[in-house]
């Protein structure tokens, strides 16, 4: 069945959901007293470390504070680059394989 757009019924998306989301984020940051600059520093370090192993899409790395059920979490969402350039694991082989 075809879905009719909301505006056909004069419905309009309320702005409250966005307001609440923004307010929540602001308050979580204020209360944790973690300045946004620090989150940027953390974000850059996460990119640096993860990039050693896998290719990440730098523009799609999101580090933020979130709060639910009385617990504040630091949440990092890291998008991988669409095509992984087969990055060999940065591990030394334990021992050279030798043919006898």
């Amino acid at each position, binding site marked *: 069945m075809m879905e009719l757009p909301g505006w056909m019924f004069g419905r309009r998306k*309320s*702005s*409250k*959901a966005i*307001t*609440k989301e*923004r*307010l*929540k984020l*602001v*308050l*979580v940051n*204020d*209360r*944790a*007293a973690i300045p946004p600059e620090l989150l940027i520093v953390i974000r850059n370090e996460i990119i640096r470390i993860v990039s050693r192993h896998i290719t990440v899409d730098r523009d799609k790395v999101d580090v933020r504070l979130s*709060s*639910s059920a*009385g*617990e*504040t979490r630091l949440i990092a969402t890291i998008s991988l680059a669409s095509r992984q350039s087969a990055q060999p694991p940065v591990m030394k082989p334990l021992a050279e394989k030798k043919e006898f």
Partner: protein
Amino acid sequence: MSGKIITVTSGKGGVGKTTVTANLAVALASMGHSVAAIDTDIGLRNLDIVMGLESRIVYDLVDVAEGRCHLSQALIKDRQLPSLCLLPASQTSNKTAISPHELGLIAAELRASNDFVFIDSPAGIEQGFQNAISTADQIIIVTTPEVTAVRSADRVIGLIETSGKKPGQLIINRIRPAMVRQGDMLNTYDVIEFLAIDLLGVIPDDEAIIIAANKGKPMSGDPTSLAGHAFRNIAQRLTGETVPFLPILEERAGLWSRVRAAARRGLNSLSHPRKMGSRS
């Protein structure tokens, strides 16, 4: 007599501290209580205008603090309500012209002869705010249902907690029921959920408040206006009565009981402890 010292504060400016102070003072005086209001917004005095007493100022708060006159000489009695008086702020000094100790002495003297002593605090969280809360028995935090004001209120609530005072109570001012119904304004329940403190009252956005302030006649005595009704209800709650919230301002029935329950359980989506500022 030993009255209660109630400080009205907000953090953010222009959300309605002076309006709330004037209207609650008038409402309580109309109910027969003796009330003194102190304007501590030094340099930006306004309470005198809203109460319609500006033309009778001789001495002010700073004069009293600095010993240039007796407290009784600086108090202005309201002509219609003889049990109401105002101690105006100085218009020329600045917010640091008075110390918490000096304000504490003045408030204590007023408390001895009044049921209620209101302190109208300046905007901000600096010295003037600290002075105003330091001497309070009870703190009223005024906010509007907007992100900026709620954020400031949250900060102020944290600072009150840090200062060791017992938590304040919230007044949400300038609610516009039509916007709330359309989902374009936070409702009472939303704001309480974010701030997790007790609700003292909700006041609608009302032109009559602006007109009353311009005339210098607080409108909490006006039987026809909804805002006046809201102020009278809050005044009654301050005397310890339980007064139900005005239904028109609420989203859903039974809000008050749910709010109380939620606050008790600390059940709010942000309920991790506020940063304890200097203590941590």
